[in-house]
Every structure is written in C-alpha cells, then in structure tokens.
C-alpha cells in the first residue's frame, strides 16, 4: 500500500514537474519566436535591407546624438556670390549644396522634367536660398515650381536680391517665399534665418509657410480692395509683424526690409494690404524680366 501510495505521489510529482517544464518550454519557444521575428523585421538577417536602413539614417546627416545638420540648397548664377553664401551658411553649421541655376536646382531636387531623378543623391534639402535675378529661370520662377510641387512645397524658400523693390518682395512672399534678403547677404541675415526657422536640433520649427500666406488668406476683405488700383499697393509687410521671427536678433544692423519691419510692435494685429492678393492689377504687373 505504501508502495502504491509512493508510486502515486511519485507520478503526481512527475506529472507536476512535466507540466511545469512544458509550461516553461512553451514560454521559451514563444519568446524566441517573438524575438526572432523582431530581428528579421529590423533587417538583421537580410544583407539587402541593411544598407537601405543606413541610408535612411544617413540622410539625416546626424552630427551628434539627436541633432541634424540643416542642408541648404543655394542657387546663384554669380560665382562670387555662391562662394560667399556657401561660406556664410557653413559658418552657421549648415551643409551646403550650391548650384548655378534654377534648372540645376530642380535637377538636384529631382523635379526637372527633362532629366530623371537619377542624379538625386538622396540628401534631404531643408531650405532653399535663391537669387532672384538669374538668366534662364529666375528665382521667382524657381519658387513657383517648388511651391507647385506636392513633394517639395513644404521646403522653405528664401529669395535674395540686390534690388530692394517692394513689388518684388511682395510677389515673392505671395508666392510662398519665407523671407526676402537684400544683398549683399551678411552673417547676421543667415544666422537670423537659421535661428527662426530651425530649432537647435536642426529640425524645421514650423511647416508650411510660417503662417505668412495663411495670415493673408484669413485677412478680412477691405471695402477698397474691389477697385483695381494702378499704383503699387502698400505691401502687406505689415502682416509680418506677427510672424515668428526673432526680432531680438534684428537689432544688429538689419540689412533687409523684412528684418527692419519685423522690429516688434507686439500688440499690432495683422493688417491686410488694401489690394487683394488675387487682384488682376497685381497679377498683370508681375513681370519676370525686371532684373
């Protein structure tokens, strides 16, 4: 009887141990399956996928943990100006690609219809800074092409020009330019731009136009706006007083009309230009040849 009892207790123990082991093994197998599938997803086993992931990481140009070097595409037909703007941008820790025409800029972005994007090196562009007066495609035309592209319209575009013409500034801002710098470009201009557009991590602070165009779109219609006025409108630069620019840096020799106008009038609400944005008069005055 004792023998029967001991056999019985033996088999119970055996059964318990066996189920525990089975239980444990099930968990182990389940964990291994989960871990292995994760590793496969991360491309640890696939040689082909690995370079893609490195490329994905690579195009952020990570210079230090969590930070990203701002990549600027500079467009200017003047070799002297290209050299200067390149140096200015590098001094403010930007990565620079400098091209000599609007056409080349579009090719670099992969937007040129004639050439395929074979030349596109995969480096993401964070900002485009372009001269206004260029032979072939002007900076204004380049701006329009970029803002007309669903892929690239989010990239901020800054226009540079030696001519401080209000109508020119006006039309560029209307078309979606983030800012307009009067040449010669100074270090303070580039620093100001970088500071208000990008955080310390090199990431764009705000997408889609920094509110300028949206601001204009939400403007209340002025009763005077319906009359087509032949004279140039007072520019909507007053709108810019509410844009998120670092007015604290503009005290150091503001070299552009924008920067001088952006000195704070903190309480002013956005005011609209009396001439509506889509007025036929304004559109007719637009000419690409007035360089």
């Amino acid at each position, binding site marked *: 009887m004792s023998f029967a009892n001991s056999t019985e207790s033996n088999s119970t123990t055996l059964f318990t141990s066996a189920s525990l082991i089975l239980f444990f093994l099930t968990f182990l197998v389940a964990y291994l399956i989960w871990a292995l599938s994760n590793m496969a997803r991360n491309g640890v086993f696939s040689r082909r996928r690995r370079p893609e992931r490195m490329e994905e990481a690579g195009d952020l140009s990570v210079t230090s943990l969590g930070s990203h070097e701002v990549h600027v595409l500079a467009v200017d037909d003047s070799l002297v100006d290209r050299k200067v703007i390149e*140096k200015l941008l590098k*001094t403010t820790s930007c990565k620079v690609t400098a091209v000599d025409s609007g056409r080349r800029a579009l090719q670099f972005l992969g937007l040129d219809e004639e050439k395929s994007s074979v030349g596109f090196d995969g480096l993401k562009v964070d900002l485009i800074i372009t001269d206004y007066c260029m032979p072939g495609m002007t900076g204004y035309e380049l701006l329009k092409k970029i803002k007309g592209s669903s892929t690239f319209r989010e990239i901020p575009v800054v226009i540079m020009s*030696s001519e401080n013409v209000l109508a020119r500034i006006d039309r560029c801002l209307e078309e979606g330019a983030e800012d307009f710098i009067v040449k010669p470009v100074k270090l303070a201009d580039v620093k100001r731009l970088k500071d208000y557009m990008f955080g310390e991590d090199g990431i764009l602070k705000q997408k889609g136009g920094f509110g300028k165009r949206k601001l204009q779109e939400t403007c209340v219609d002025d009763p005077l706006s319906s009359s087509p006025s032949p004279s140039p409108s007072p520019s909507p630069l007053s709108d810019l007083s509410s844009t998120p620019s670092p007015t604290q840096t503009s005290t150091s020799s503001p070299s552009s009309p924008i920067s001088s106008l952006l000195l704070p009038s903190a309480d002013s609400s956005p005011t609209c230009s009396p001439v509506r944005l889509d007025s036929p008069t304004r559109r007719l005055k637009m000419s690409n040849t007035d360089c």
Partner: protein
Amino acid sequence: MEVGQLQKSFVDYTASLFREGFLDGQFSQLQQLQDESNPDFVVEVVSLFFEDSDKLLNDLTRALDQQNIDFKKVDAHVHQLKGSSSSIGAQRVKNACVAFRNFCEEQNVEACLRCLHQVKQEYLLVKSKLETLFTLEQQIITAGGAIPMME
C-alpha cells in the same frame, strides 16, 4: 621689416581703404568669415571677383562697341558687376555701376562710354589696392606674425 611694423602698416592701410571708400562693411564681413579652416577665404573670393570682372569689362567694351548697341545686354553685364562688387565690398566700383545702369536705362551711348571708363578706373584702383593689402598680409605671415583683426 619686423612683424610689429608690418602689422601696423597693414592696419593703417586697411583703415585708409575704408576711409577713402574703396571698401565697405561687406569686406569686413568677408574678413570675419575667414578662419583656420579656410585661411585664404578672402583672397579666394577676391580672386574670383577679379576674374569675373575682367571678363565682364571685356564684354562691356565689346557690347558698347557695336553699331546697334543692345542696352539690355549692357545692363545685364553692369548688373552682374554691381552684384559681385557689392558682395566683396568694393564700394566705389559698385557706385560706379549704379550710375552706369541709370544711363543704360536712358540708352545714352556717350554717358555709358564715360561710365564704362569710370568703372574700369575704379576697378583697376581697387584691384591694385587689394593686391597691395594681400602682399602685406603675406609679408606678415612670412615674418611669423598674425594678421591683425580689424574692428
């Protein structure tokens, strides 16, 4: 000449160039951008300016020598020269170009020819002065000194 003297000559000479209006604040900008990673930056940019300007002045001479002057073309060249001179701080060249463009707009041949002559004069002057400045810099470096930073 010893380093201290060379440095003083450099400072005095630079100051005179600014005082006489040959150079403006943009030249100082370029000097400030020069650093150890790019110790010849100013010389490089100015050399590009010399090459660019030589070509533009030749083009301008040719363009104004035509029977039927294409003032649009002339203006385009002057605009370019104005831009590059402004970018390096060659103030007197830039100002001469501004006057030139006004006469292009008026399509005044005589005045344009006078302006071309003026621009050439100013260009040759600033070129010679900058070359003297760079020579002084080189002498300082050869003598083991550092280029003084201008205020």
